[in-house]
């Protein structure tokens, strides 16, 4: 088995918040299948907070665990708080990722940030 710790294995075997949100307020996609990992995040926003977060991930065990952890960390946070989630803080919450997997699999935070940016740009466009 790959050198994954118990927390990573738990999030891989029992991923939280898998799926898509119908009529999401924002969608973010990061990575591409060529480098092996790709993930999409859907968010529902209420009163500037992430009311719901769902993800889908194509990739290895680490990529799935990362996405699951990001969704868990983000849920209920304000948008500004959620933008402070970083690959490092995700890896920290997962109690470590294998070194060689850190960069390629750890795209969840960026995908979430893109979903938030998507939401904000829609808000701007709608407000005009």
């Amino acid at each position, binding site marked *: *088995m*790959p050198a994954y710790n118990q927390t990573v294995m738990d999030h*891989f*075997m029992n*991923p939280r918040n*898998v799926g*898509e949100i119908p009529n999401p307020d924002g969608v973010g*996609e990061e990575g591409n*299948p*060529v*480098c*092996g*990992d*790709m*993930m*999409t995040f859907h968010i529902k926003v209420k009163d500037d907070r992430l009311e719901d977060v769902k993800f*889908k*991930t*194509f*990739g*290895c*065990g680490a*990529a*799935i665990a990362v996405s699951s952890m990001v969704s868990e960390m983000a849920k209920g946070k304000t948008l500004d708080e959620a933008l402070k989630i970083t690959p490092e803080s995700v890896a920290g919450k997962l109690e470590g990722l294998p070194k*060689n*997997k850190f960069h*390629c*699999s750890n795209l969840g935070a960026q995908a979430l940030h893109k979903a938030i940016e998507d939401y904000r740009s829609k808000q701007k466009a709608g407000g005009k």
Partner: protein
Amino acid sequence: MRKVYLDNASAAPVLPAVKEAMLPYLGEVFGNPSSLHDWGDAAREAVDAAREKVAGLIGCTSPEEIIFTSCGTESNNLAVKGIALAQQSKGKHVVVSAIEHFSVLHAARTLEKFGFEVTEVPVDKHGAIDPDLVRRAIRKDTVLVSVMHANGEIGTIEPVREIAQITRELKIPFHTDAVAAAGTIPVDVNDLGVDALSLAANQFYGPKGVGALWVRRGVRLMPLLDGGIQEGGRRGGTENVAGIVGLGRAAEIVKAEMASRVNQLTPLRDRLLKGLTEKVEHVVVTGHPQNRLPGHASFCVEFIEGEAMLMLLNSRGIAVSSGSACTSRALKASHVLLAIGLSHEIAQGSLLFTLGLDTGAEDIDYVLEAMPPVVDRLRQMSPLYAKFVKSGKGGR
């Protein structure tokens, strides 16, 4: 939980009879084969007997043409570098296939650092090499052709005999990496017409850490390991006597059992190839559908990634391999899967099942039951699958 080990190409248990044969050479028969006394004689006799058995497995009538090595990788390095470097006064060009094992491909790249040029012959979608492309790749300064007998990742058996006809006609040494083939399918160096052939004990229930390179008399070879006069001066170093004895015994056993092993494994392989493509949608068989190694079934499962499949299968007691980028330490997709024309995306879903002598039909059926839920679960998580489903609906 049921345990089903289908990763026999990576590692397989040493047969009890092989282990029995080896044990005395880890204990009371400890002499150095080069020593000139009874202790040394006992070890040398054992090494010579093993040499005859290995020669017997590959139809070689001159056992002294067998060089014992530490593994298939060493055999391939010795063949590629050793033959090319010994002939560099004649020319500095070698021809290999695009799907060679890294121990051939990377050895050829090392030759480039010594001024050699390397031509990689492409393969078709089944991983088969067109002998005519090998002919066209050969130049006046070609000093070596190296094409594998069978590919360990996709199982395809290559037209080695046809390629040898070309190299013989043009008088160019032809090495074949038979690590995946020798001890798995009948291999006869004279029938094939090759000039050098690599094999490894761990591919046919012998120990890890021992292999052999057969080099036809008259083919010049520069040693990689300079040292004493062991192995006719072609490979220095005190012999791994116990390992060599194990290789010999394993060769002797598989020679006797070859037909029954092939007959046992082939229908199980076909049950898996057929069953999985029927039970799971969007699965591609990699390698040649029929002309492939008997116990070898390989696939790419679309929209999902190999390591995640391996982990879920392992949680159900099933051991397999993958050539996906995420499962390789270098995080690169298998060069073999890309060479047969698969996209990076499809190559990510690579799965490799290698059956063994203890594999039964019920093991295959267990895998066929376990696979659909594993695939479904990962596809439900996959944005690529979601896109595919949506695009399918959009098209209606």
